């Protein structure tokens, strides 16, 4: 068989782009993407909350889509373009959603915040003028145990207003 399968493949080379930086690494296949980002790349802004794909604290963008990095193997992300919370600000300017969380006090303890912001940024990318119902629907995969949802929704509404204002 002329297949890659001839080796045991217990130490797998991966290549991926994270926040516009190309990385090459060798990982155990069982390495979860969130631990690769945190432990290997030192990007600890992506949090591990529940570790069971419920809470969304580990949300990142994989090829432009919000996903839960605790439920993806690092090897599955080989070849992907990833953005984490650290890559959202551009040239020292916060992303409008980050500004919104500061402006409207969308942060309480802060643990869920990176995931909330990544989910919200993905929403505004697809739908720049969401209704409150659409904002809440987009946050179904993110839990805030401070229960600070009212200000979180307000922060995202504020960010949408900024995005639309800039585009006018």
């Amino acid at each position, binding site marked *: *068989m002329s*297949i*890659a*399968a001839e080796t*045991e*493949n*217990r130490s*797998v080379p991966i290549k991926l782009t994270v926040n516009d930086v190309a990385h090459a690494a060798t990982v*155990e*296949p*069982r*390495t*979860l993407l969130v*631990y690769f980002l945190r432990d290997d790349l030192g990007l600890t802004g992506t949090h591990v909350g529940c*570790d*069971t*794909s*419920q809470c*969304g604290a580990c*949300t990142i963008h*994989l090829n432009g*889509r*919000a*996903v*839960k990095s605790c*439920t*993806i*193997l690092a*090897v*599955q992300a*080989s070849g992907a373009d990833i953005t984490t919370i650290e890559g959202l600000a551009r040239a020292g300017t916060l992303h409008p959603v980050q500004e919104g969380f500061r402006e409207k006090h969308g942060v309480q303890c802060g643990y869920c915040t990176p995931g909330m912001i990544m*989910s919200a940024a*993905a*929403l505004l990318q697809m739908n720049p003028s969401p209704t409150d119902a659409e904002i809440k*629907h*987009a946050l*179904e*995969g*993110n839990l805030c145990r401070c229960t600070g949802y009212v200000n979180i929704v307000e922060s995202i509404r504020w960010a949408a207003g900024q995005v639309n204002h800039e585009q006018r």
Partner: protein
Amino acid sequence: MFPANFGYFAARSVEEALALLTKHGDDARLLAGGHSLIPAMKLRLATPKYLIDLGTVPGLRGVRLDGDSLAIGALTVHADVASSDLVRQRVPGLAEAASLIGDVQVRNRGTIGGSVAHNDPAADFPVILLALDASFVLVSPSGSRTVAAADFFVSFFTTTLAANEVLTEIRVPLPAAGAGTAYAKLGHPASWYVVVSAGVLLTRQASGRCASARIAIGGLGAGPYRATATEAALQGQALTPEVIAAAAARAADGTEPDRDIYASAEYKRHVAGVYARKAIEAAVRRAMGEGEGMS
């Protein structure tokens, strides 16, 4: 939490995946989106020695029209089923089911083929696909076969998929003119897994009578089942609210659901009727052409 270690193969073709499956047999599991398998591996409920990744196989994603069916690649993620114009316009009940799975992040990663092959009794796709009379293309080293949903789903987490087969495509017959499809779900408020759900394919005659109905119910047992008493009660009848309500009330006939920590058997049987009614009413509205696709 992290899985027990395993050997990883990034398959480059279905043929290569089949060769690996043949070589490693029961020691290997196929990996699609991983949103059922990886959590099970983290809990060490699954400890495969090898994972064969289908995510690296080209050509298994997307929805296309193929004759009088939709052909959906097994690796198509839920979000892409939900947002597909073809699905929304031609089989809105399927788009509805896809849009009600998990949350945004899960829908961006979980695949229709993975959901179908996993056959979790609290999953959404098996229910709507049974109602739609979908079939599954299973490829093995000796060729391929196409298995109807009614024969594919066997029991809890069990299908007729053989150890040396790969599910490559889901085929959904396009509903006839005058047909409506719908899916209604009572999800558990925390996990959003199915407590009870109903999928409907219903054809309405110009006279307003029901020409045929296929109704599948999920959550009450080892997998989706046809609510034959409800179907029979609709057949040939005028689709009035009274007829629909009386028919839907029989959605749990013949079932003996287990009680669990969330719901009693009596409650599950009751809400099966409620959600069957909601789905039948939506299917009838679509059959009448009111917003034929999803808005």
